[in-house]
């Protein structure tokens, strides 16, 4: 789907929370995003549109700009030019990380990033959706969360027996699971999941695909992954990124049969 098409979709004029007009009906709308690092052009006019409740897999060779795209969406990296709009009204290029997270965009990092000195349960506790202001955290609701609420999430990611262990003691795969659990606790509208199955066994990979499909029933999800097996198991549209722009988009069969995609992957 091209950017023009996404704009053509923009029929609704219902005002958003900021009172702005909806630019698009898409949940996430990126258009002609450009990012340069010390002269290296990591994103060169990336456009991508994600519908509400859609799951999308992003593939592409190393250095294609996949992670950089997530950095732009989450406010970590400011694009040089281009549009990034969430929910039709929020200009992501002007907001800081915390505001973007508050809007409902959650992220799992390529290198699993959990709070190592905290227990598994506390990692979930800190991720739980709800007010996050500093002063109320001394006395407020996050001090009275039922253990059961945390265990419900740990059960989904299979970490209940590890709830009291420091996150630092988990294996790589378990940290990936914990970070997915934190995403679930955050309950965002859009989940950005960067290489979730790196370091997992085949069986675990399959479980992860299942879990993501389940999550995608009521959330929009973007998954970056190299593992084609896994991508196929997600049963969703696929976008192939190459040299900072979308090269092809469609079903997994269509994309993997696209001669340009084949060339990019074989050409390495």
């Amino acid at each position: 789907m091209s950017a023009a098409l996404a704009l053509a979709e923009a029929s609704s004029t219902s005002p958003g929370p900021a009172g702005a007009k909806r630019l698009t009906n898409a949940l996430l709308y990126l258009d002609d995003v450009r990012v340069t690092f010390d002269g290296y052009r990591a994103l060169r006019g990336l456009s991508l549109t994600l519908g509400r409740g859609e799951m999308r897999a992003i593939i592409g060779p190393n250095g294609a700009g996949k992670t950089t795209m997530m950095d732009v969406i989450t406010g970590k990296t400011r694009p040089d030019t281009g549009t990034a709009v969430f929910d039709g009204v929020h200009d992501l290029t002007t907001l800081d990380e915390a505001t973007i997270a508050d809007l409902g965009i959650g992220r799992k990092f390529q290198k699993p990033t959990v709070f190592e000195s905290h227990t598994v349960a506390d990692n979930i506790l800190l991720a739980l959706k709800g007010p996050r202001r500093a002063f109320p955290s001394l006395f407020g609701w996050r001090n009275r969360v039922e253990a059961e609420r945390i265990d419900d999430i740990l059960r989904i990611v299979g970490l209940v027996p590890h709830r009291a262990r420091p996150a630092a003691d988990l294996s790589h795969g378990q940290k990936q699971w914990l970070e997915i659990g934190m995403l679930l606790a955050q309950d965002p509208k859009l989940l950005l999941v960067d290489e979730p199955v790196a370091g997992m066994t085949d069986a675990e990979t399959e479980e992860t695909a299942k879990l993501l499909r389940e999550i995608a029933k009521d959330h929009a999800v973007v998954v970056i992954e190299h593992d084609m097996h896994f991508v196929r198991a997600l049963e969703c549209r696929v976008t192939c990124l190459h040299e900072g722009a979308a090269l092809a988009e469609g079903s997994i069969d269509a994309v993997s049969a696209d001669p340009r995609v084949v060339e990019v992957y074989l050409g390495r």
Partner: protein
Amino acid sequence: MAPRTPLLAMIDTKGWIFLGVLLAVCLIVPLFNLAVPPGSPLHVPTYVVSLLGKYLCYALLALSLDLVWGYGGILSLGHGAFFGLGGYAMGMYLMRQIGPRGVYGHPVLPDFMVFLNYKELPWYWLGFDFFPFAALMVLLVPGLLGFLFGWLAFRSRVTGVYLSIITQAMTYALMLAFFRNDMGLGGNNGLTDFKDILDFNVQAQGVRVTLFVLTAVALALGYLIARFMTVSAYGKILVAIRDAEPRTRFLGYRPHHYKALAFTVSAMMAGVAGALYVPQVGIINPSEFTPTNSIEAVIWVAVGGRGTLVGAALGAVLINYAKTLLTGAMPEAWLFALGALFVLVTLFLPQGIVGTLIARLGDRKARIAARLPPEPDIPPRLLEEGRGS
């Protein structure tokens, strides 16, 4: 919602030991000072009471530093500034208490102002004759500086070495300012020759003992506040910020709010420590702002055990006791000894005294637990049962 952990449950074993020792000291020291006659070998002389009181003030300073460094990862090399400001606020009150009894006998102006030809009291001295006002300033002045400094630095995402350097610059700048006579705060002589506190003679034995007990109480309160903060969700978030600040932002936290809050509370605690220090030591001067003072406080915390609160207090008392002994014997050697101690602790006890003890005990517990059958490792069962429940 689950009830919050009851307040007493937040105190752990080392906390109870700490509070118990403080209570014992609060009973024994006054008893052996007031009830045991001076001739007896068990008698604790009044100057020793004040010396111990001074150690406890340092312990409170160390505790405040541990709150930001141990839990927030903010290595402040300028905490002496907050201690000094609290001390000056108290010193100003004590100066006003002198009244017309100064050497020059001026009804209002302290001696140094008469000497410098001041015609009237500078505006910022107003109100300091009123104890509640001075007590408020003891909290407000360091707290406000801590808040402003913290807010600006943390919002600009200044961290690590850069932050440490600007905290050091802060205390250095204050030192230079307080050395100036036209600051109206006594220049390099500072404030001294105190007579009364709340109309009691500040030199009197009973007053000394009371100040000592109050310091112990302040230390216990400081510990309870810091402990409450660090075991709450706030403290967990603070530790998360210490370990992975960027990650917390993507969860929606604003780290600068959390850090500024810790820094402000910490600055106020340091201010109280300084305020209790001044009447027991009898003087406050700009040397309290020297960068080395703040660095020494960091060493106390490191030696005692960063991130343990109790360890910070212990480190402060032990090292200052050693300092008293050593500076009596060979004053030149102290800085070398302190430096050597710091290096040795960094190399061999990186978690400090209390941190190492906890790790040892934890290992023993783990070894005992290992003899029990392990919990079965349940594989991820995921969606089927997981989501439905």
